[in-house]
């Protein structure tokens, strides 16, 4: 049985960030990844500038192979049913269009942690002073003994399920799928990520260019029909925006947990097991999860370093330290923050004010209709509670966290 300081489950960006913090402090760290590296990852690849900065600071300049074409994105364009479109540049400058297969592999290598790929996490036992991790490699069982475990294995996290078996049943799940089309004619500006606030299209509808093809993506409550939803979006883009695409050549999709950031119901683990990144519920507005995954992953690593240095329980430290990332992420969904502050990395209020009064009214009306789409999840009170906590407490309550 391998005896190490920390086991990290998953080899994504949050895992790389956590691993970097741990190896920098001299802790023996092993990363478990179920697939063979480099592995494919479903993602838009549009990183926020804050995440870009983190990558540069911690892992160095990005290699070309870690980028798709176009290599960068300068901002987002919101489209509304009333046919008003608003393009907003990121405050922090252009940001990379990551090829997750190679960017994640590059980051995990740069972290200098030991990586065991083709090794699937199976179960864990927290014994108080250490954690036993059961995994499988090539069908054979392998065991690790670690002082701490970090679950950084994405929204459908097996570590989260191991710690909170009932958790998946307690939150609404969405399916997010994207299809790749060869382009006949596409008037959408390739320098921007395009997002539709349109209740008839889906809960999350986007499009952007990648490697000479156009991605058309749609997110919806799990159980609905991807093909039908996607066809509806393609028709809408054709009719309303003049986007002419050939039949898709590839498609992919995955489960997503949109709710926890919105209503401040994160899961951070128990005992010596920390959960981070999207597994913990971090997701920025417009579905960008990489920057908060990087930062929350780093904080999980920092918490373990601090726990060892201060000889204090890791959960207590992790929860105190993660509060800054919770503020940044949940602020993006907080209606009061959106109305009176600038929680996003692009200036929505300024773009709105650049419109005429008539167009502003249309945009606000369209946004309200879009928000109503989420009514069935009954998040209203929780959003209001979180929004009021922010000015009163200077942050968000730790009480709803698990």
């Amino acid at each position, binding site marked *: 049985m391998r005896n190490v300081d920390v086991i990290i489950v998953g080899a994504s960006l949050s895992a790389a960030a956590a691993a*970097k*913090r741990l190896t*920098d*402090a*001299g802790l023996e760290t092993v990363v478990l990844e179920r697939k063979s590296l480099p592995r494919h990852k479903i993602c838009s690849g549009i990183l926020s*500038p*804050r995440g*870009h*900065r983190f990558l*540069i*600071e*911690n*892992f*160095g*300049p*990005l290699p070309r192979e870690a*980028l798709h074409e176009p*290599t*960068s994105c*300068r*901002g987002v*364009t919101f489209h509304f049913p009333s046919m*008003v*479109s*608003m*393009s*907003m*540049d990121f*405050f*922090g*400058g*252009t*940001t*990379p269009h990551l090829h997750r297969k190679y960017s994640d592999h590059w980051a995990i290598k*740069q972290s*200098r942690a030991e990586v065991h790929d083709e090794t699937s996490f199976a179960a864990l036992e927290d014994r108080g002073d250490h954690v036993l991790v059961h995994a499988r490699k090539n069908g054979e069982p392998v065991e690790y003994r670690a002082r701490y475990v970090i679950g950084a294995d994405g929204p459908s996290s097996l570590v989260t399920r191991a710690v909170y078996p009932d958790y998946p049943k307690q939150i609404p799940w969405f399916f997010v799928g994207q299809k790749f089309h060869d382009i006949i004619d596409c008037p959408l*500006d390739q*320098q*921007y990520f395009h997002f539709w606030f349109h209740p008839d299209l889906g809960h999350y509808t986007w499009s952007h260019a990648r490697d000479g093809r156009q991605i058309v993506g749609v997110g919806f409550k799990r159980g609905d029909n991807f093909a039908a939803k996607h066809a509806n979006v393609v028709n809408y883009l054709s009719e309303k925006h003049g986007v002419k695409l050939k039949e898709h050549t590839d498609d992919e999709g995955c489960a997503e947990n949109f709710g926890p950031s919105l209503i401040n119901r994160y899961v951070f683990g128990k005992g010596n097991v920390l959960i981070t990144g999207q597994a913990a519920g971090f997701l920025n507005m417009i579905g960008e999860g990489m920057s908060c995954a990087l*930062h929350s992953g*780093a*904080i999980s690593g*920092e918490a373990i*370093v*601090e726990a060892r*240095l*201060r000889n204090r329980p890791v959960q207590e*430290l992790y929860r*105190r*330290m*993660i*509060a*800054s*990332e919770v503020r940044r992420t949940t602020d993006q969904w907080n209606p009061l923050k959106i109305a009176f502050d600038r929680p996003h990395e692009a200036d929505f209020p300024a*773009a709105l004010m*650049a*419109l*005429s009064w008539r*167009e502003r009214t249309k945009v606000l009306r369209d946004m309200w209709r879009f928000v109503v789409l989420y009514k069935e999840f009954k998040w209203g009170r929780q959003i209001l509670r979180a929004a009021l906590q922010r000015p009163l407490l*200077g942050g968000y309550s730790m009480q709803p966290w698990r």
Partner: protein
Amino acid sequence: MDTAPSNPLPPCPVGPDSLIAIKRQQTNPARWNGANWAAFAVALRAAEVELLESLAACGAFATDAGGTAYGMPHGVVIARDARQISNLLKTAQEHGVPVTVRGGGLTTEGESVAFGGVLLDMTGMSRVKSIDAAALTVRTECGIFWHSLAEELRREGLDYLSAPLNLTSTVGGSLNVGGIDVNSPRLGCSADQAVALQVVTPTGDIVECSETERADLFQRVILGYGQFGVITEATLKVRRYTPLRMHYFYYSSLRTAVEDLQILDRNDASDYSGILTIMDSAVNLLVAFDSDEREAAFNAKWRARLRGHGEFGFALRAIPRYALRPWKWPEALYLWQRKRQLFPEFRRPEYLRDGLMHDRTVVFSRAVWKFWGSRQMVIPDLATSAEKFIKAVERGNAVCRKYFPYYTLYCVGIKLRGDHKPHYEMSCIPPDATGWAYGCEFEPVMDRVYSRDHLQSFKNEIYDIGVNLGASYYRFGGMMKGYIRRALGDEVVDRHLAMKRKADPAMILNRDVIF
């Protein structure tokens, strides 16, 4: 309607320069790759330099006082003498192995953290070599902590001129970055008191330098951030020991207190002065004297002109202010609790006798650790000319308010020496300062743990004020590499870089601190 902005794309849209508004960079650079390490280790041992490579030895130096940057050296060398350090640097030059020099490790941006390579721990060189009571100088090894030096000097009835408030910094570290004290308004920064130095150059030469002997090296090494050599010994000016006569004045306005501080400094009205605050709610102007005569002169001419109040007067004015603002009651409670804890510490009977403070070294250093210190020191600072200082303090105060519930500001003047102008170039001393520079430390009370991102964001906002105002950063051990060009300009930095390349061909000594 599509409202597309039309800013041009940067030349490399994914390069570091494409980050327009996000200036933070390389707080935690990539670790040195370890090329030639094995051959280097063999060569170093052949040169009879003990090299520690165990995880325990390296792990002890994984971070600095700032606690936001972590890195593991490949090996550690404990400094023993100049010859050993010379052998280390010669071998490192030959093999291209980076050497990071560490004194007390009180840097706050990872400058004394080795991201691979060798960490040279200077605290092994901590002996006082000689004290000349007649000439008022001391010759000491530079890995000595200031409190140890103070102890040795007291036996001879002497005292240092100016040392950092945190006395677990080493003499060598302070000479490299500045160091200030409440007597800096009269006596300058700690680095100004050096008369002569023994330096091991990056290529391993052991040389003596002073204002008259190898003056160019002396000018570069003092306030040089360890770029041009390792200071192994220093001759420092000292003075006769005197107990202090302390006076405290309390203000509710930062601006008024700073104005009064500057009046005192300009008119040489006190021997010691500085400001310590509890947020911007209780601002304490500290004034002290070495002699009854100086105190009497102050009482006769200046005391009535100060706009601060005594403890009781301040309390009387604060009560109605808080009574009318119920939302500020938690702050009032904190002030009261802080006063109850802190004030007795400055008046402990073993240090305060007949109204005189003995052992200010112990009193201040204890208080710093007890009330402002923690395992992690997060103390960004700004150094400006006298004219810009109030603005810098007020803007920094607003940043503190935004990030932390409780914090302290520590403001002090630094008397500049005209003959030290060459030392000050590319240092903590802002280029536009004349007569005095002024420094303010922004110290959150670290009563809880914060993520590194939160702390770094706070520090960056303070540093941004410096860039915006054309200021510098007086501890400078605490300034990020990414800010140096923006604060001091390419011309100055490139000139010093050329000198550095000449002095350190393999660029091994304290790389990534400035260049």
